[in-house]
């Protein structure tokens, strides 16, 4: 019996097709994994299951009968619970209030029955072995507990189907084990689990069957006992892997960016690095190792407590990204929606803003139309015109806009934070090509990425960070996933 069945599901966001004709079924009581690369459509599929998105075409059936979910409340009422990747808790409320948010136990005239909810919450917390009080405010809880709180919330509504979206991204090895024990117990109680992840070891540990998605389409479903990791990887990637560029780049003898003993308590300490013009250096580390914070300090978002920086041999002190840009240092931030793009402005305005600001330009120049058109053309950004709005572009092209808007300035030092996060494979290769081209033109590139294959394929050298310090340096030609991960992770369980 199929607990959940997806039939010919299509879903697009503007010009981007997130899901294309996805059809597969999840058997009642099994733990079913959905795997795929970034942008494969995993999260979109879960959101459709949880009722927060509606498919453009196709249908979803539960226990064999088609349903059209009207919203997350409807999904919850039908026994579908979703544990989000992001923390959707109300940090200002208590644990009990979070568990029952939106579905409070009420008496007559809607009066809240606090005591009932508190008792019920205490039961659920005990079942999940969570040593917290129902009255504790959520913002005092560790991150891992907040995620488990979402599980508690799903259980409070007697969910038969529990979907988890990348639940271990921000958990430590110990916390991950705790979560897995809870999932085992739930499975024994007959709950159907849908587990989305790109961490294959976890998937093989938890799930009975594994469905692979690629670029929004269904590829195959494997049984844990008959498939190997390689089979699944092949299905996820489905292409020849990108190889390292073999064309050598001219590297300047003197470092362009030199950092000595840079410290910003409590995020990172004693960071020293040198990058020559023409070099691409990766700063690799797990989430929370202080990588992004280093880049932010390099462009003056937060000042260092100690340390010296030089750019092109001259002392470099900056108090804002504006100062940094004027010194020729540009940051392509991690979150293009929040930190990169202006959705109220056309591509033309987006593209010329940083250079105009850095040059302290007074007037809007006529030439900006040609400048921005040239940027779209040179960096192969697929957009209807320079007057199009950013939200009409696919994620990959949006990311290229965020990159291109700095290129008019010809930065000497280019800092890239997760440059290909959430973009499709084709755009990823194109962005890699852009970065290589910039390096060939003499820029010093420092890249932060959690995407190990990307790091290995793009970087000349890899600096590995853990707990705010650089723990080692590896020449990329001699590195493999294992050697880098060994340096980056304290416990083997944290390796992705």
């Amino acid at each position, binding site marked *: 019996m199929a607990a959940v069945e997806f039939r010919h599901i299509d879903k697009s966001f503007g010009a981007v097709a997130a899901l294309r004709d996805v059809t597969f079924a999840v058997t009642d009581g099994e733990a079913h994994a959905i795997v795929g690369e970034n942008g494969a459509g995993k999260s979109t599929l879960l959101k459709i299951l949880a009722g927060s998105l509606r498919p453009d075409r196709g249908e979803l059936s539960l226990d064999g009968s088609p349903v059209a979910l009207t919203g997350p409340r409807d999904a919850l009422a039908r026994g579908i619970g979703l544990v989000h990747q992001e923390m959707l808790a109300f940090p200002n409320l208590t644990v009990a209030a979070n568990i029952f948010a939106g579905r409070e136990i009420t008496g007559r005239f809607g009066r809240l029955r606090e005591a009932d909810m508190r008792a019920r919450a205490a039961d659920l917390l005990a079942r999940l072995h969570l040593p917290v009080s129902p009255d504790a405010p959520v913002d005092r809880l560790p991150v891992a507990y907040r995620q488990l709180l979402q599980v508690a919330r799903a259980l409070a509504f007697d969910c038969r189907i529990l979907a988890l979206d990348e639940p271990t991204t921000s958990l430590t090895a110990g916390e991950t084990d705790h979560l897995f024990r809870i999932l085992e117990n739930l499975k024994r109680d007959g709950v159907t689990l849908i587990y989305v992840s790109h961490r294959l070891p976890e998937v093989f540990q938890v799930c009975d069957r594994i469905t692979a998605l690629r670029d929004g389409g269904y590829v195959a479903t494997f049984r844990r006992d008959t498939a190997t990791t390689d089979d699944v990887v092949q299905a996820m990637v489905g292409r020849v892997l990108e190889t390292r560029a073999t064309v050598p780049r001219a590297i300047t003898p003197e470092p362009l960016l030199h950092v000595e003993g840079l410290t910003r308590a409590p995020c990172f300490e004693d960071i020293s690095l040198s990058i020559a013009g023409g070099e691409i250096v990766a700063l690799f580390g797990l989430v929370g190792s202080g990588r992004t914070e280093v880049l932010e300090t390099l*462009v003056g*978002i937060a000042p260092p407590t100690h340390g010296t920086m030089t750019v092109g041999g001259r002392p470099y002190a900056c108090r*804002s*990204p*504006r100062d*940094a*840009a*004027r010194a020729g240092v540009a*940051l392509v*931030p991690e979150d293009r929606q*929040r*930190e*990169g*793009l*202006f*959705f*109220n*402005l056309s591509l033309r*305005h987006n593209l010329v*803003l*940083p250079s*105009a*600001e*850095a040059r302290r*330009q*007074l*007037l*809007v120049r006529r030439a900006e139309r040609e400048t921005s058109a040239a940027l779209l053309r040179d960096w192969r950004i697929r957009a209807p015109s320079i*007057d199009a709005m950013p939200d009409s572009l696919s994620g990959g092209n949006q990311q290229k806009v965020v990159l291109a*808007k700095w290129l008019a300035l010809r930065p000497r030092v280019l800092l890239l934070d997760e440059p290909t996060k959430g973009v499709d494979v084709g755009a990823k290769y194109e962005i890699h090509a852009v970065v290589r081209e910039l390096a060939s033109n003499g820029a010093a590139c420092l890249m932060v990425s959690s995407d190990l294959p990307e790091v290995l394929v793009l970087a000349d050298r890899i600096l590995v960070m853990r707990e705010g310090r650089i723990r080692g340096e590896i020449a990329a030609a001699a590195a493999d996933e294992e050697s880098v991960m060994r340096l980056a992770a304290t416990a083997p369980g944290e390796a992705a």
Partner: protein
Amino acid sequence: MKKLWEVRELSTVAILALEIAFFTWYLWPEGGRSHPFLNTANGLLILKYSSIYGIAAVGAAIVIISGGVDLSPGAVIALSGVVAGELFVEGHWSLAASALAGLLAGFACGILSAILVVGVRLPPFIATLGVMGIARGAAFIITKGRYFDVSGALPPGWRLLGIPLDWTSPILMIVLALIFQWLMTGFQWGRAVFAVGGNETAALFSGVSVARVQASVYTIAAVLAAMSGIALAVVQGQGKADLAMGYELDIIASAVVGGASLAGGRGSVAGAVLGTLIFGVLRNALPQIPGATFYDRLIVGLVVIVIVVMDQLLLRRRK
């Protein structure tokens, strides 16, 4: 280039034209008497009264586009008018010096808002609510209940640069609207205001000096409100502390009706000024309809809602 029908200001012009056409038709006089609404004197009257809102709305629109809000213009109008009036009528200062002192009072209010928003990082709503209280309070302390009749103290038939007094404030409004419309579209500063309003974090990461942009918009808005206060004192002769009560909300409403989004990043100076004319015509024409006087505020409220809802619907359809 933008298509003609994508220019948001055109729909505001259309609403204004429709409104004027409606009142022209509705108030059409019987038997060849002169039209009570559609005549030059009444048109000038509308412009004269609207310009007080309009001059301040230029600043309000800029603040709203930057993603903020300014609640102080009504109080700043009163304060600057009172300062200029006190110095001119009682202090016997020259008109230019009194007006300059009034502008400086507005400038001080703007600097205070800027410090509270940029330096102390108060939410703009709270910061300018405080400044509103301070400015209004200062106006009461200065006047202690007195009243300054500035135009009464002017020589009869006095003209500013050869312009009849009644025409000065509408001309000032139009000139300021044109200048700031140009600053907002043709200058990098205006671009930065739109960028900060659209996405403050991205603006910071793109090398925009967010602090400088925010400080500039609150200062400019307060100085513009002060100009409108002086216009009120000189042109309409009024200088008292309880003047322009509640104007801030009408001014914000005008900017919103003219296409500004309180979420920031969207709007125009010209639209805001046209918005004040829409309300100016309403305020002028409604009392001429027998029995409609009491409906005046109600209709103003409905107009705001209807126009903004229409705007939202159009915006959604375009997407």
